[in-house]
């Protein structure tokens, strides 16, 4: 009998606790993101599609067409890299860089493998398309410009590298 009454009382108390928790939540501001009007604030490391940004200091792309990224890509999403040819000799600079967005799985391996930090995953995430052909992109002629935080982050990648190299030389 005592246990019975105790059961009832603890039951009521715990139910009231639950009610008070939900009541507190009613007065909180909704945390919903109203998507098409409000855009999410993405992290720096967010992996959108691959881009080859223009380095604002050199006013040119940084790629040397060394093919490392194409070799490291697990599913051959980097299809073709063509070098600039001057006076009949190939130069260390990409003329054409063809990337297949359709098969890319955003693993970031190519970005990590690139010794010159020439490519980076951008903030673009709305990538749906009606046509499969349109997913095959040419990155050099795109002349992609990074902005804001992402640009600084990208810059710090190769700036740090030059600093590191200096250290090694010392």
């Amino acid at each position, binding site marked *: 009998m005592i246990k019975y009454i105790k*059961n*009832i009382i603890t*039951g009521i108390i715990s*139910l009231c606790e*639950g*009610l008070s*928790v*939900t*009541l507190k*939540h*009613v007065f*909180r*501001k*909704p*945390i*919903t993101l*109203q998507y098409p009007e409000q855009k999410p604030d993405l992290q720096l490391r967010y992996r959108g599609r691959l881009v080859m940004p223009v380095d604002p200091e050199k006013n040119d792309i940084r790629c040397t067409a060394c093919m490392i990224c194409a070799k490291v890509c697990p599913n051959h999403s980097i299809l073709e890299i063509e070098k600039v040819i001057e006076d009949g000799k190939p130069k260390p600079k990409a003329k054409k860089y063809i990337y297949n967005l359709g098969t890319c799985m955003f693993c970031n391996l190519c970005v990590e493998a690139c010794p010159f930090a020439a490519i980076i995953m951008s903030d673009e995430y709305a990538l749906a398309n009606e046509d499969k052909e349109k997913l095959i992109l040419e990155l050099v002629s795109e002349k992609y410009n990074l902005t804001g935080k992402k640009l600084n982050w990208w810059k710090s990648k190769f700036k740090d590298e030059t600093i590191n190299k200096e250290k090694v030389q010392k």
Partner: protein
Amino acid sequence: MELIKDILYNTDKILKDFYNWAYKLWSSFNLPFFILDIVFYLLITLAVAAFLVFNALFIIYYDRKVAAKFQVRYGPNRVGYKGILQTVADTIKLLIKEDINADKVDKIVFFLAPFLVFIPSFLVFLVIPFGKGLIPADLNIGILYVLAITGLSVLGILSAGWASNNKYSLIGGMRSAAQIISYEIPMVLVILSVLLLSGSLKMGDIINAQSSISKWFIFVQPIGFILFLIAGNAEINRAPFDLPEAESELVSGFITEYSAMKFAFFFLAEYTNLFLTSAIATTLFLGGWQGPFLPPFVWFIIKTYLVITLLMWFRWTFPRIRVDHLMEFSWKYLTPIAFVNLIATAILVKFI
């Protein structure tokens, strides 16, 4: 001006005058009176049906908004101003969807079940006092009628579960039958203790017995009010007692096989039942349509929606209870407490 005030505050007098005027007019034509009666009844039915549909539309919208509030989000806010037309859009979608009949269902019963669920909730409106004189029929067995009619809806749920020829539906229907029958008892006991205080089964008399705020039965019967809310919530199969349609166990219980309009009927019935339970709680415990300044009808709606909000609060707080606990809770806890409450009330009424 005077007329508008009368319509709002003394609806019973206006209605009576209108009846008398109509009868006089009718008798000057020398036609039988039953035709006029039928016309009046049809008008009342139409008014109630219109109220029921719009009210259900609004409650669904309101439920979603309240749920969103409890979950720290916005809820529907795209269709119409603040999403007010969302349920209208949903209803239109349900209306134009294909009505699928599964292969081995029991055709007739399958077709009739949604109506069997819906009709009892429609019939209960006969004795719901919306305001002064705004009651379709003030039967002298009012509350008994409510209990008798709401008990019928279990038939619809059970036949929906049976006719679907699907094990989940059948289990859902069976659970619903067990649940409604076991929670009927504490509910009746609570209502009995209210009836001891009011001394009448008539809705009008119950409301008149609570003529001032201090006489509201919620203050005399606080335990009764809580028990009524719990049992009522279980009767209408809403969370935390939504075992008949427990998504995580039974897909969707007895509505698993239903689609389109029939599915809409189940939802209409569910939300109408929610409104009815709240309306009866208002009538029994919160003094019905009585209140200062505002017209009686407005007071009734405000109080009813308060109770609805309370039930939604429960719904979005408590997890669904397990099926053996459901029975234990009813038979071991609610029923004895309701009995003690009834006996205490009887002693109080006798000696004070």
